[in-house]
């Protein structure tokens, strides 16, 4: 009997802007592209806002996907280098006014250390707002999984997602962080297929999410799906990673606009 096609929620996508050679697209265009790959919903994050003027790009992202809120779950961003009170107010604004439901932080592009004094208050605020925090991780000097785990340990009420599961060089640290800290989840975007197989073997399945970095590069969504499918995991395991786990963390349409 043929297995029915699996529903997929992509927990790591980007709204393409003008940086990194991306071409800006509307929410509708992007949705169409993702749906063509079999994606049923996507957590979406800014690209340009990681480099400058986070508040402006939070507005642009919210506006860009406003008509597609049954499909996209937008994440906001703030810079830990900015005034802390301003950042916390911006997070509240994003949650309450823009209905953004997660926080994206990128210690490498945003050039902050996880020991920066503003990081823990920002993460704590995210927990209060029920925003999971998805981190770029896997790249020294600021984005090693155990650096992120250092802050995660101080905010046990906040859900922390390692957006690349440590990539190929630090995936074993990501596994350790996921095993040690109940609030650390792994998004399987980035590690090679053999390492993904190992991550699935070693980590609690309910803490694993599918993500593609879609919107960032042309063929990246399809590549990420095929890579996870090639891991050899059982259909029921894949179903949890592709669909059930992200849906449990952030149900689609709850704050739909």
């Amino acid at each position, binding site marked *: 009997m043929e297995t029915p096609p699996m529903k997929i929620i992509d927990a790591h996508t980007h709204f393409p802007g003008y940086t990194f050679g991306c071409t800006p697209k509307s929410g509708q265009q992007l949705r169409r592209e993702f749906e063509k790959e079999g994606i049923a919903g996507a957590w979406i994050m800014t690209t340009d806002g990681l480099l400058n003027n986070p508040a402006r790009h939070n507005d642009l992202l919210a506006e860009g996907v406003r008509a597609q809120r049954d499909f996209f779950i937008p994440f906001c961003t703030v810079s830990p280098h900015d005034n802390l009170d301003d950042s916390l107010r911006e997070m509240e604004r994003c949650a309450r006014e823009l209905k953004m439901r997660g926080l994206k932080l990128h210690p490498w592009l945003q050039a902050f250390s996880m020991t920066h004094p503003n990081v823990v208050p920002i993460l704590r605020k995210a927990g209060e707002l029920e925003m999971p925090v998805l981190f770029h991780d896997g790249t020294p000097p600021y984005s090693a999984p155990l650096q992120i785990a250092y802050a995660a340990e101080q905010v046990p009420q906040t859900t922390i997602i390692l957006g690349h599961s440590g990539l*190929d060089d630090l995936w074993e640290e990501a596994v350790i962080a996921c095993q040690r800290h109940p609030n650390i989840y792994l998004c399987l975007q980035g590690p*090679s297929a*053999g390492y993904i197989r190992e991550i699935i073997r070693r980590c609690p399945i309910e803490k694993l999410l599918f993500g593609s970095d879609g919107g960032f590069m042309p*063929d*990246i969504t399809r*590549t990420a799906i095929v*890579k996870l499918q*090639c891991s050899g995991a059982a259909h029921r395991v894949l179903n949890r990673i592709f669909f059930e786990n992200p849906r449990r963390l952030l149900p689609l349409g709850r704050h739909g606009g």
Partner: protein
Amino acid sequence: MKIEIIDSAVCLPVVKHKLCLEPWRRETKQWNIAHAIVAPSDGLVAVDNTEANNQMARLMKTWRGKISGLAVANPWYGKRAVKILRKAFDDGLAGLYIHPACQGFKLCASIINPLIEVCREYDRPVYSHTGTPVCAMPFQLAELARRFPSVTFVMGHAGYSDFSGYDMIPAAKQAPNIMIETSCTVGSLVQAAINEIGPERVLFGSGYPRSLPGYEFAKFKSLKLDPSVSALVMRENAVRLWKLRL
């Protein structure tokens, strides 16, 4: 016509201090892989080099025509490493495998020079793991390749993860004696490498066990390469580079 594929990137798992070919063979049963270039892994790369090379030479005899083995010699062993490498080449191993992160040196550090000189003398290529920050980055490989222009270097895994998109092609352009091995990285970057540095400098690798053949073949299938380009990347470049007599 179906191309008999050559896989230029396999690391054999070590079980009870023995190199095991069987898990990879099981993994590749469904793929049309005619020959593989295989390297050791783990402690056999870092420490027990003579043992690794001897095991590899035995595997090559057992699987004659199916595999070519790469030699390992940790440069920190100094003159002993040179001796180990010469012996491995005399035993027929096809090239040198280096893994700076595992062996504890920086790719462009002069400590590796004596081993590259042996490769030059024996006319053997060097496959280097790349992609690990600090010690195994594409521009470090380019620096080494410029130092030894008559030796061919393979940029293993195309600098994946974070160096594939940014450094891989510019570094390869710095040194024409660099070839790019395609495992782990994404399809669009393989296509970019083919377009920008030429299909004759790109080599297919499964990257096993770090990556898996199923994913790597799906990646290539999605590129829809011209058959002549595909033949170069999947087979002919490897035959030329590793001097295979198939």
